[in-house]
């Protein structure tokens, strides 16, 4: 029998080898630790931003200061701002080809399979390393059709009018404490514009990598999908395993215009020393639709509730949420569907798994405004517990202010059955394989929605999470 500590070591080694490795520090600039107006101004200065943006950042910092740490959800007491580096610039400039990317950073992304994925099945790819994007590229034929896929900084620099029209309108700084923080110190992320009627068949992907210990990474992404257009955007994230904490606090704003469709897939696989506090929201207009596919497999603490704002009749939104909480992990995930207009529809499907003492929660809000008659929504949240040490909670808030709506809500909690494991093992699978198979089956209604490359990736990550399971 190996001890729990040895088993835990085994899990870490497996993650470390594939994702948790670190490069030697090689930044071109590193701000001092901590946060104050000087640091904020410095970030703005280094990005050579217009004055209005610098003013916005400094104002957001005040908003951040004025808001208390949320008293609900996961415990954030361990997150100490004074220990965090709020800005670490990895390279002098952003590469348009992988040759332009510094050698050691390129090697990291090679090891993570990012250039290979780009070659095989992506319409474009971006890569962020610590505080900034080091690479962004989109296929030429899409560029020729007017698609913009750039770093958020390049978006501001090169498309200032379009940027300013939408930036901060979907998620204003005062929305919540961490949205305010992001508005003050945002750095990196993507700026995407898809012109009317342009349908991008293959996904665009951005990969977020933390390398420096004690880093704060503040991804800011703004996506505008114009009328009748289609986009699938995917983000992945990993980090080295450190004994000290890091922070990723992203804000993702999406505007889905009339008749447009978009899908945003996250495969979050941070190392288990990262606080992941993300606000992401889509505003969906007439007959448009948006899907959030949100898989949270890594991190120490995640608080993340992708939101749908259904602004005009015919708007439709879906949230598919997967959360996997292993030892020492808290996954406080879920989603929000806000029906502002009549004849809008939404669907939330959440699947959470907890093992080895992990805690997973579904936290959701379904809100129907007084005018939003004939709104339809279904919320299904299922939890699977792999052992008796783990916990799962469900907080389904429902606020209905319109008289005529159709709402469905179901929640289940199940525990993996000894008989299921015995049955699978009697066919030759090891206990880990049997557990992984039950878990993959539990997640199947979600993973079958993913493009094949990502569902394979997801199954592989689940397998990794399942390795060395205890008990």
């Amino acid at each position, binding site marked *: 029998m190996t001890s729990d500590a040895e088993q835990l070591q085994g899990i870490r080694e497996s993650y470390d080898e594939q994702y948790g490795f670190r490069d030697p520090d090689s930044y071109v600039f590193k701000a001092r630790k901590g946060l104050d107006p000087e640091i904020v101004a410095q970030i703005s200065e280094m990005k050579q931003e217009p004055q209005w943006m610098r003013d916005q950042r400094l104002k957001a910092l005040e908003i951040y200061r004025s808001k208390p740490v949320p008293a609900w959800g996961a415990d954030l007491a361990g997150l100490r701002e004074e220990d965090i580096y709020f800005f670490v610039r990895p390279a002098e400039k952003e590469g348009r080809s992988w040759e332009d990317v510094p050698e050691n950073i390129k090697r990291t992304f090679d090891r993570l399979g990012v250039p290979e994925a780009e070659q095989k099945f992506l319409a474009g790819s971006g890569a962020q390393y610590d505080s900034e994007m080091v690479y962004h590229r989109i296929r030429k034929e899409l560029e020729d059709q007017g698609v913009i896929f750039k770093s958020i900084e390049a978006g501001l620099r090169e498309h200032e009018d379009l940027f300013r029209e939408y930036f901060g309108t979907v998620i204003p700084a005062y929305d919540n404490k961490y949205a305010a923080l992001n508005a003050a110190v945002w750095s990196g992320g993507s700026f995407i514009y898809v012109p009317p009627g342009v349908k991008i068949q293959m996904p665009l992907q951005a990969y977020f990598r933390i390398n420096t210990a004690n880093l704060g990474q503040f991804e800011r992404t703004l996506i505008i999908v114009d009328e009748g257009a289609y986009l699938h955007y995917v983000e992945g994230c990993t980090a080295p395993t450190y004994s000290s904490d890091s922070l990723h606090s992203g804000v993702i704003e999406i505007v889905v215009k009339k008749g447009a469709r978009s899908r945003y897939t996250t495969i979050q696989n941070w190392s288990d020393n990262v606080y992941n506090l993300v606000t992401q929201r889509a505003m969906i207009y007439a007959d448009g639709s948006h899907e959030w596919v949100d898989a949270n497999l890594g991190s120490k603490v995640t608080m993340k509730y992708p939101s749908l704002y259904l602004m005009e009749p015919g708007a439709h939104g879906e949230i598919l949420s997967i959360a996997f909480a292993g030892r020492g992990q808290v996954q406080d995930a879920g989603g929000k569907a806000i029906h502002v207009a009549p004849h809008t529809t939404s669907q939330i499907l959440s699947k959470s798994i907890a093992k080895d003492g992990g805690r997973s929660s579904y936290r959701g809000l379904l809100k129907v405004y007084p005018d939003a008659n004939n709104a339809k929504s279904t919320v299904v949240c299922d939890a699977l517990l792999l052992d008796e040490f783990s916990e799962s909670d469900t907080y389904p808030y429902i606020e209905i202010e319109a008289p005529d709506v159709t709402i469905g809500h179901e929640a289940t909690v199940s525990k993996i059955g000894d008989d299921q494991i015995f049955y699978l*093992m*009697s*066919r*030759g699978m090891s206990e880990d394989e049997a557990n992984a198979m039950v878990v993959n089956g*539990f997640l199947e209604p979600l993973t079958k929605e993913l493009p094949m490359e990502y569902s394979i990736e997801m199954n592989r990550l689940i397998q990794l999470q399942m390795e060395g399971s205890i008990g």
Partner: protein
Amino acid sequence: MGAALEIRNLHVSVEGQPILKGVNLVVKQGEIHALMGPNGSGKSTLANTLMGHPAYEVTGGQMIFDGVDMAELGTDERSRMGLFLAFQYPVAVPGVTVANFLRNALNARRKVDNPEDKGVPIPQFRKMMIEKMDLLQMDHSFGGRYLNEGFSGGEKKRAEILQMAMLQPKIAIMDETDSGLDIDALRIVSEGVAKLSSEDLGVLVITHYQRILNHIRPQYVHIMMDGQIVESGGPDLALHLEEQGYDWLREKQANGDA
């Protein structure tokens, strides 16, 4: 030399309660044995113990399979060595298709032979699965259904036999495969088993009833009562039991004990 399953003076308890009290039985590859007996005599306990169910505690005796004492072997290892149990109540595994499940089960075996194995190629796997489905008169769409979820009694048992056909065990234990089946389903299932019979397969059929034995013709019949095999014989024994019931055996036991 074929493989054999040898059960020597096996004692088993469940939650501290002795259920098997000294079972002796040898099943060799190529042989078909039937194990009969009244409810609660310990037949299913024997099946589950042989497969290594953690709730069944071996308190004495040995189980030797293919020359190896299975005492320290996990359920998965027993399976990969070529032991198979067709369950009386197969459990559902939602979200896992029959085909996916079978491929994983096959690959688990291949990995033991060769840790570098990349798994059975999909076209080869599909061909094999379709072949076996045809043998068992199963619709090909079956492979896409979630394992045992919403299956009828007959479908569950057929799925068990399909697994047996795919995994090609050396020794298969069939735990009341005939229970809950109507005449047609019973015929299809037992004909399937008959088709799988060969020099390379030993079968232990656990049943209450003679009727499955009309299709799967055992060479040996054993009767279990109160945790022991009390009578062994040829096919006639099953017929005799069908006509006479168990009372004569109980009397014989009582007299023997006196």
